């Protein structure tokens, strides 16, 4: 294939058109409409179409990206009533015979999208982790000694938002896309082009996000340089803060679209494309966890999008969604009032709470599957597990006001929200019952993945119990806004989702890359992660109890000891994650070749050869039993397979 054919359309042509789009959009607004001087470092330029220029630039950058990667061709041909692509063209879109270049373009093959997600989310995780190391450097000693305060606040904001966006996607993106269709016996996702566009939205969203450190950090202190708000972007401070907020808002908007599109795709795929015999009660728990997460993403993300759009409108068009009529400098900036500061809290947390369950549900599902495989036992309560997962899904929409116990908003509702938040520990507890029961009297094979499952149990237990303290209103009054909260949610998100992700990557690495990750390096990185993680966040619980607020660049010497321990431990955690990443990269290139089913698992993805053929199955299997039935007689073959009969070829 000629080079032009390879590179156009591709991510490279997309990047070129994106850059052109940004330059054209921003320059048009700044020069033609605004007529401002070109020196953006000039304080006089700020506010004078500066934001509008960036936003129009970002919009045209996004449009340019989608045109450049060739994503808009088929929607347009469909709208114009032209012929739909035939099977050969669809195979071409899926990257058939394209070699490595198919990973650098709009490709519909779910396995390619899965690998793209893996690389993108691991890159996001690396940058988020870099932000964490910078935070812990500043907090190593009191006195804001490493970064100026406005820079620190911006780092805190960027670390938080980037990690949230990473964890939203890092399970359902790589594994939801690569593994789940094979797991349910399908040839691809229900909407392959939507799949390709979901990763494209994430990539361009992250490109916009990357602008933030370069926007406004040199601004005068009083306007709040950089982005001072924390990831919760409360509208009051978000309206005021530096120009980076426009990039953050737009990036979050794009990433939100990516998440919702992916969610719809996954739910539809599971409902409509299961192989014959793959009833809902025969699906591996990983699929259920991903569905629960996708339901929350599909329903909840809109609330955040609305919050972000209102913030951008307040900033650019001087609407007043978040300001009641008050005195102070906001009146002087042309805000007319009539809004409500509580509105931003409610809009944010209506999304924000289901959000955190979105983050952990895929890990719940995976850890249950992995425990079953590595204990050689069925799940101790398949329906119990489903009850647990869906109890969490439903209740997660009914608890958000526990983030507002001290806000003064409708205090009479606090009793209800205390009850609902405490109630959500019941379905979560069922997951623990299933896990403990599954490993009981099993044949425990201590792979690195199983290690991460035990780490999950330990960490989520601590995270969950400390969450109960926060659910109690009198205790929360004392603990809200402090480092106790930070330690709690890191125990649940890092200890829950990240441990699940690291275990899942080690587990599915052989199927996705054809090679095994190194076990020795795996265990060393595992222990470094456990010691570093627990050291850092247990110390953080301690300084939280002592009275340290969160998101502070400087702190009283009272908290110096705990912070020092936390920072040193965090550096160990960071180094260990880097070691794990090294294991991934090295093993990808030079690890031992993997057999077809190295773990002896019973789910469908292990019945296909590696590398997985383009259309996954030669013939769609007919499934005759569940994914955990180790006791049923297996077909005599070198590799244990679930009980499937080769059915007729479909399609």
């Amino acid at each position: 294939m000629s080079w032009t054919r390879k590179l156009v359309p591709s991510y490279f042509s997309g990047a070129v058109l994106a850059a052109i789009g940004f330059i054209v959009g921003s320059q048009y607004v700044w020069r033609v409409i605004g007529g401002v001087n070109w020196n953006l470092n000039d304080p006089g330029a700020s506010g004078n179409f500066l934001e509008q220029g960036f936003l129009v630039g970002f919009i045209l950058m996004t449009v340019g990206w989608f045109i450049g990667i060739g994503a808009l061709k088929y929607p347009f041909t469909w709208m114009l009533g032209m012929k739909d692509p035939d099977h050969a063209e669809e195979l071409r879109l899926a990257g058939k015979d394209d070699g490595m270049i198919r990973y650098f373009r709009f490709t519909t093959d779910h396995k390619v999208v899965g690998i793209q997600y893996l690389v993108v989310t691991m890159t996001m995780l690396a940058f988020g982790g870099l932000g964490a190391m910078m935070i812990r450097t500043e907090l190593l000693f009191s006195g804001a000694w490493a970064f100026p305060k406005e820079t620190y606040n911006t780092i805190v904001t960027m670390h938080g938002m980037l990690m949230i966006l990473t964890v939203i996607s890092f399970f359902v993106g790589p594994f939801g896309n690569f593994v789940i269709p094979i797991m349910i016996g399908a040839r691809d996702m229900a909407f392959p082009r939507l799949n390709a566009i979901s990763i494209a939205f994430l990539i361009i969203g992250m490109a916009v996000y990357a602008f933030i450190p370069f926007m406004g950090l040199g601004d005068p202190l009083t306007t709040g340089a950089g982005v001072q708000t924390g990831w919760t972007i409360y509208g009051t401070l978000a309206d005021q803060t530096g120009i980076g907020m426009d990039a953050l808002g737009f990036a979050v908007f794009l990433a939100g679209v990516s998440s919702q599109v992916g969610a719809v795709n996954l739910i539809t795929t599971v409902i409509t494309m299961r192989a014959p015999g793959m009833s809902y009660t025969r699906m591996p728990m990983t699929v259920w966890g991903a569905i629960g997460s996708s339901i929350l993403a599909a329903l909840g993300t809109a609330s955040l999008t609305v919050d972000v759009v209102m913030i951008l409108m307040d900033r650019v068009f001087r609407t007043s969604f978040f300001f009641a009529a008050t005195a102070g400098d906001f009146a002087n900036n042309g805000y007319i009032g009539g809004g409500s500061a509580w509105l931003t809290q409610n809009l944010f947390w209506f999304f924000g709470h289901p959000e955190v369950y979105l983050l952990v549900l895929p890990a719940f599902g995976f850890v249950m599957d992995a425990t079953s495989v590595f204990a050689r036992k069925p799940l101790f309560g398949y329906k119990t597990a489903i009850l647990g997962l869906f109890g969490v899904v439903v209740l997660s929409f009914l608890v958000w006001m526990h983030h507002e116990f001290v806000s003064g908003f409708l205090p009479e509702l606090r009793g209800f929200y205390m009850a609902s938040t405490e109630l959500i520990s019941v379905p979560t507890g069922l997951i623990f019952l299933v896990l403990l029961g599954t490993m009981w009297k099993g044949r425990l094979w201590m792979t690195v993945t199983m290690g991460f499952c035990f780490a999950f149990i330990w960490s989520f237990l601590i995270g969950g119990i400390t969450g109960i303290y926060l659910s109690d209103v009198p205790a929360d009054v004392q603990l809200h806004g402090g480092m106790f909260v930070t330690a709690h949610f890191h125990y649940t998100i890092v200890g829950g989702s990240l441990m699940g992700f690291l275990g899942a990557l080690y587990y599915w690495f052989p199927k996705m890359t054809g090679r095994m990750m190194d076990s020795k390096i795996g265990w060393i990185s595992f222990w470094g992660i456990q010691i570093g993680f627990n050291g850092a966040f247990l110390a953080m619980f301690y300084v939280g109890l002592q009275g340290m607020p969160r998101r502070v660049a400087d702190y009283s010497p009272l908290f110096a000891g705990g912070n020092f321990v936390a920072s040193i431990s965090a550096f160990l955690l960071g180094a260990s994650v880097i070691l794990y990443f090294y294991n991934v990269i090295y093993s990808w290139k030079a690890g031992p070749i993997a057999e077809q089913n190295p773990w002896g698992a019973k789910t469908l993805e292990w019945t296909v050869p590696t590398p997985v053929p383009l259309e996954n199955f030669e013939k769609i299997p007919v499934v005759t039993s569940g994914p955990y039935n180790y006791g049923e007689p297996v077909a005599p073959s070198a590799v244990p397979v679930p009980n499937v009969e080769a059915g007729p070829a479909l399609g």
Partner: protein
Amino acid sequence: MNSRGNLRTPIILWVVCSIALAALYLFLAPILAQAGAIPPLASDVADNAYYIMKIFTLLSIPVFVGVVVFAAYSLFAFRSRGKPTDIGPQVHGNAKLLAWWLVASFVLITVLYVIGFNGLAQLEAAAPASALHVRVTAQQWIFDYTYTDYNIQSSTLYLIDNQPVEFTVTSLDVHHSFWIPEMGVKADAVPGELNTFVATPNKLGHYTVRCMELCGVMHSDMNTNVIVLSSSDFGKWVSQQMSARPAGIASAGQLPEAALLDASGKRS
């Protein structure tokens, strides 16, 4: 490792370790509190909050120990050497265990809820008529206090020992949060809204206010002093303030520019 295992060992371990950990906690908690693990408590609200937290800790100990013991026991008793050559018992669940687990969970959270509800009722009790009224106004990046009973403004918060105080908290610009760690007093300062909190200090001394909601660059520096005085000392301070007040001072609610008054009420 025998791969049969038994239920008795982990259950005994569970009971013994729970009791031991609870005893250790009860022994260590006052020592750690003295050493600064929690702020020195100085109000009825704080006493209540930490009392509740103590009960929650004692109730969580068996939960925590139970999961850890059973997981660790499984790890030691059922571990296979390398890839397993046979499979475990094909047990799909246990309805009775599930039922008991659910019952125990609901009982536990009901207990937690009742404790919390009681504590909440205390928090929501209205301020008595004799309460001192303080209006807390937050703005980037200071807290300012107005004693609406006396029409006095101060940048240091003076309170009366054993007398209830009702804080009415608001903000002039962005979200802040007014927190006195030692007193368990926390109320978000939300622009355009009034947030009230009632507490009764019960120890003389010097305390600190911290801002608990990220509010911009100087968020970490929004600390002010709190001094709890006896009733007579407070009265002295009030009369000092009222006599030192220059004629024509702005009425309560507006801030004089650069209003930084030191402890004796003089402009610094």
